[in-house]
């Protein structure tokens, strides 16, 4: 494990492990408690595999009542809890703690209700993202957010991470497609936020829960909006001699009033890795490759393809191919979708970053990245959700070489600092988790972070739920609540008064 320090394990909890395991078996009878080292190995890390830790015990509850009892039990005894969905987090959001109960929600795997008149699906949180689409696709519907792990990632995990995907510029993130949740607070209380109706009657707690990375509550049910599948989709594959031209093309497409269903860019190293791997027919001589997918009625797609082609040519595209069949569209995507494994072929290991930048800063960020690449002596390939400025640099390294992981992490941190410097953010869709936790001060000052932690205090005043994630340093709620105001010592504001 590299340099990030996790909360110090609580000795009292560790000492009571046998008793806690026995109590867990009472709360979740049957096969739902895993406590042997061998069996717990499967849960020691998530998608951020550089970090590993065995939990105190793994519990797989089956009912809301069990989740409620479990959390209340832990809350009353000051025992930490880490929730986990499918364990596909790329930021270490589900990384276990030595003294924490790992609550795995995979047995919550049922679709509860499909409601076509209201176009909603209500599912348990362990249902996969793609499982929701599978439940309704025979009737022509789908669930729009499509993170690349959608075959495995759970909808509960999507709520925790506010997951996106390649279609989110047009169709929104998880936060824009979830209507309601049921959740259990750390004190065992069961709360419903939203439902099949829109908007909150009070504070938008659903809005803060989505993307809260498992620090506020454990989600036990999710209601999402489903959409009718677009009639058709076609893609353009466009090559440019420079990333500036590619970036300008994206800006012009949006400037023309077109919001494509998907718009992805790859740089030269990523293009070559992908082409070598899947032979999608990508042009190898270009510096930037753009995939623009247009979806909707055929007449609209045809109309827009004409517009996009003209914009591409105006921006100096060296190749511009339009998919003529569904097969060809999928081939265009095959390279992009295989970009991560393709990079995995050319390097023993890679480290995936996730900053977002104002799109116009792309050339500056890419050239900055090249300089950093030389400085660190590590290669980097870039895939880029071009429509929304979400950049995924893949840093190439070899974990077997001593010091290379640390070097890759330092390189990644510098890339994210660069993203923030040009007006961007640390993470567009993968979450802060453990990985970017200590970079939070790059974006937020103490006051900003304290206010976020105070929201945590409203949900979990003892900081027992998923500690060590998101916040560089969890401050005690009592300390956060203290006010530093003294009557008469605040200067009377020198502003117009009437």
């Amino acid at each position, binding site marked *: 494990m590299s340099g990030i320090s996790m909360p110090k394990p609580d000795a009292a909890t560790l000492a009571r492990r046998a008793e806690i395991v026995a109590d867990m078996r009472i709360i979740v009878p049957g096969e739902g408690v895993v406590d042997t080292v061998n069996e717990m190995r499967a849960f020691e890390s998530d998608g951020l595999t550089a970090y590993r830790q065995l939990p105190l015990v793994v519990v797989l509850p089956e009912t809301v009542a069990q989740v409620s009892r479990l959390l209340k039990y832990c809350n009353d005894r000051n025992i930490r809890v880490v929730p986990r969905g499918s364990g596909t987090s790329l930021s270490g959001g589900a990384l276990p703690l030595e003294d924490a109960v790992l609550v795995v929600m995979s047995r919550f795997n049922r679709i509860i209700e499909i*409601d*076509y*008149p*209201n176009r909603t699906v209500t599912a348990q949180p362990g249902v996969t993202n793609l499982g929701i689409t599978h439940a309704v696709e025979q009737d022509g519907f789908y669930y729009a957010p499509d993170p690349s792990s959608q075959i495995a990632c759970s909808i509960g995990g999507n709520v925790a991470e506010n997951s996106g995907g390649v279609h*989110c*510029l047009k169709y929104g993130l998880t936060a824009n497609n979830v209507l309601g949740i049921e959740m259990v*607070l750390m004190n065992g*209380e069961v*709360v419903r936020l939203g439902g*099949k*109706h*829109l*908007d*909150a*009657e*009070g*504070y*938008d*707690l659903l*809005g*803060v829960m*989505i*993307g809260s990375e498992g620090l506020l509550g454990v989600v036990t049910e999710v209601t999402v909006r489903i959409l*009718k*599948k677009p009639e058709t989709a076609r893609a353009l594959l466009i090559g440019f001699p420079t990333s500036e031209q590619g970036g300008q093309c994206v800006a012009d497409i949006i400037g023309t009033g077109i*919001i494509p269903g998907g718009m992805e860019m790859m740089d030269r190293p990523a293009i070559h890795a992908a082409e070598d791997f899947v032979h999608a027919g990508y042009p190898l001589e270009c510096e930037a490759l753009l995939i623009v997918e247009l979806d909707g*009625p055929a*007449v*609209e797609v045809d109309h*827009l393809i004409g517009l996009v082609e003209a914009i591409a040519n105006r921006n100096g595209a060296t190749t511009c191919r339009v998919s003529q069949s569904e097969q060809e569209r999928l081939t265009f995507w095959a390279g992009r979708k295989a970009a991560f494994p393709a990079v995995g072929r050319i390097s023993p290991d890679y480290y995936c970053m996730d900053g*977002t*930048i*104002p799109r*116009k800063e792309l050339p500056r960020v890419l050239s900055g990245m090249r300089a950093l690449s030389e400085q660190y002596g590590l290669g980097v390939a870039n895939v880029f*959700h071009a429509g*929304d400025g979400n950049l995924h640099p893949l840093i190439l390294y070899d974990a077997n070489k001593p010091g290379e992981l640390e070097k890759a992490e330092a390189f990644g941190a510098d890339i994210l600092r660069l993203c923030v410097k040009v*007006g961007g953010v640390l*993470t*567009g869709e993968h979450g802060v988790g453990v990985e970017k936790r200590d970079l*939070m001060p790059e974006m*937020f000052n103490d*006051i*900003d972070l*304290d*206010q*976020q932690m*105070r*929201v945590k*205090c*409203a949900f979990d005043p003892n900081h027992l739920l998923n500690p060590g994630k998101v916040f560089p340093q969890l401050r005690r709620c009592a300390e956060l609540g203290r*006010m530093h*105001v003294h009557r*008469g010592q*605040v200067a*009377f*504001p020198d*502003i*117009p*008064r*009437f």
Partner: protein
Amino acid sequence: MSTVTPTTSDEVLAAVQWALAEEAPLEIVGHGSKRGIGRPLQAEHTIDLSKLTGVTLYEPAELVLSARSGTPLAEIEKLLADNDQRLDFEPMDYGPLLGEAPGRGTIGGTLAANLAGPRRLKAGAARDHILGIHAVSGRGEAFKSGGRVVKNVTGYDLSKVMAGSWGTLAVTTDVTFKVLPAAETETTLIIRGLLDDNATAAMSIAMGSSAEVSSAAHLPERMAGRVLDGKLGGDPATLLRVEGFGPSVAYRLGQLRQMLGNAGPLEEVAEEASRTLWRDVRDVRPFSDGSDKPVWRISMPPANAHHMVLALRMQAAADAFYDWQGGLVWLRMEGEPEAELLRALIRKFGGGHATLVRAAPAWRAAVPVFEPQPTALAALSARIKAEFDPKAILNPGRMVHSPDSATLASAAEGAMS
């Protein structure tokens, strides 16, 4: 009583710190265009944000716009329109309904009230488009959340907590919204003569089709005559809006005609007339009658709401029309608000919430204006409030009955009996 009119965020900070030191409750006001919504306030002092103005960043190609919170919404909409863009969530204007002039309101108020419009199902509300904020909490601290890029999951989304918080958590000083291209053209297909249940079914079919209907509303008998200067006549009108590029709009209208041709007589209203029609629906023109008869804004599952309305009418005189495929009900009561009856029926027919957006002040003091929450959720919301505003100095009592407004409420109840 005094009013502070800051022109910079530092002045907002100083004003809140002063109020905190004095423990003097503050009313937070932009243009005051929505002042009549919520429980009546008795704040000693007012922060008037109408001079905290100006668009600070607008990059059409990046789809972002930042402005100081007192910037007039109308000014922002004009700027966007000049660049063929818009706030896709189509914020409504409460002015006409509340007997105020139309076209007022600030961008900060747009967020604080989580405004939306007929495009809500497809495009979302203010909460779905807010990217970042700067604000001053009731603790007298200036904080920020979010950013200025359209995709961001860094830290908790405190911007969304501001949406619909009605100025009770923090004073927002700067907002950044996602903006989107305006549609090239729009046409509304109107089905005439449907009763509420058939209209609901038709809207559900249309919104669940690949015709990409961006808005669906139903104006029952008599309501239809109160929009578009009466040009539609009084027969029930079920409205389906299709927006986008010309050839696509024409094609999708054809699809809808085919799908719904047997539902009833079809009419079309295009371009400017269509835009006016939807503005009238958005701004509740049918109930903009200059009166203070109670008006409820009700959000329910779209397919269920008309059952609730039917059941309510068995027991109380009310007019209603529907937006959001039926899921948004605007309800005007002939007599009393009938809050308990209405809320029981909402629970019975699938859940949701009702906000009493118009009523005489005495009613607003006596009846919970916002839907009361179950105990655990209400307690959680109260804890959130306390974490932002521990001394309850920001718009105290506007959303929920707070201890210090108890005297006011009981006085109002006395006045009603």
